[in-house]
Structures are given as C-alpha cells and as structure tokens.
C-alpha cells in the first residue's frame, strides 16, 4: 500500500534538496526553487487524482461482478478521501499564509 499522504510526510522532516547547489546564493536559485515547489504541488494534485481514479475503478469492478474484495474497495475509497482532505487543508494553509503576508505593511 502506497504512502497515505500525497505530500509524503517524511518530506517535512527530510526535505529533498531543491537544487544540486543547495545553500548557495547563485542568481538562478530562486527560479529553480520555485519550479521545484510548483512541481511538488503538481505531483501532489496528480497523486490525489490518481488515488481517486483507482478507487472509482475498484468500485466499478465490484459493481460489474468482477472478483474484487470488498475491503479493497473500502480501503481504496478511504485512502482517496484522506488524500483529498489533506491536500485541501494544505492548500488552505498556503492561502492563509499568503494572505497573512499580503496584509503586512511594508
């Protein structure tokens, strides 16, 4: 069973290096870091979508009379639901953080 979190909780404590020269102050660094973060978000959304589609396929297979275990369907559905909820909450935190910074007086 794959990791439950689409954002891979271990990445919070062991973040992958954003660029080969992590920590350096080269001019191209912020651009490369931004691209990496965008990729991270995109991967997370794609993961959630993939989990949802897989769960739907399992449910349809069961409904079509194919030999699918009921617990497999239930677990796949729950996994997709949790992944979506986690993604939504992370998105909320990001939006909240942006709004807090936008409120700052220069």
């Amino acid at each position, binding site marked *: 069973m794959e990791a439950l979190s689409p954002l891979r909780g271990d990445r919070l404590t062991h973040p992958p290096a954003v660029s080969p020269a992590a920590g350096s102050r080269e001019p191209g660094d912020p651009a490369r870091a931004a691209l990496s973060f965008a990729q991270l978000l995109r991967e997370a959304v794609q993961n959630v979508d993939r989990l949802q589609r897989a769960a*739907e396929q399992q449910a*349809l297979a069961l409904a079509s009379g194919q030999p699918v275990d*009921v617990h497999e369907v239930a677990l796949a*559905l729950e996994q*997709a639901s949790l992944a979506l909820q986690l993604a*939504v909450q992370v998105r909320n935190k990001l939006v909240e953080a942006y709004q807090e910074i936008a409120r700052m007086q220069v």
Partner: protein
Amino acid sequence: MIPGLFRDPTSRALRLALDGLARRQEVIAQNIANVDTPQYRALAVRFEEALAQASAPRPAPATLALQTTHPDHRRRMASPETTPAPIQVVEAEPTRWRNDENTVDIDREMLLLAQTQLTYETVVQAMTKTLGWLRTAITEGRR
C-alpha cells in the same frame, strides 16, 4: 451546471449498478415467495455486462451534425444520454427440476441475496465517498 456535476461516467455507472442490484433483490424476494408455486419459473436480473460496456472508455462523440435529407434520418449519434444501459429481467437458468415445473432453487436464491446485499451496501458507500469528494471541494474542507 448542477446536474452536470453528476453526469460523469463513474457516477452514472454506480447509479446503474445500484438500480440493477435493487431490482435483483426484488426479483430474489419474488422467487423466494414463489418457491412452492407450480410452474413458476425463477427470474434473474442481468446488468453487469451492460455496466461493463457502459463504463468502458468510449470514443469522443461526433461533433459534426449528420446530414439529413429525409424525415426518418437520424439527427444525432447515439450518446450516453439517449441510450442508457439496460437492466434485464430474464428467466434464470434452471439448476434443478421438479415435478410441478417450479425452477426456484432456494439455496441459490439465499446465496445470491446475501451477495446482492453486500455488493449493494458497498456500492452505496462508494457513491457516498465519491459525492463526499465533491462536497470537500465545494466546502474547501469545511472551513
């Protein structure tokens, strides 16, 4: 826009499955009620094949209008909305023979009833979860 939320192939397929399973449960109940009726032929419900066909990936619908030169010419290609997958009630294959020509196999009906109920409840749960995803997106996680 609102009905469009529920028109995706998966939702329709799950709804079809629920209709089929509910119909099957009715037919089983009728078979059991008629276990001693002379000459009664046991019935069965078929929808799984139609369901598999309906949820198979289909090619994109034609966007060109068909040229019609006669009132009887069809104007639209068949689409998921106009040709729903059917739920068929047919005579069940007999598994045993009796003198009074009744074909109800009570053991088979009881097994099928248990399986139908289990599948029905699981598909209901699947519908609830998939609709819950929509709700999560709409309410932004109940903020």
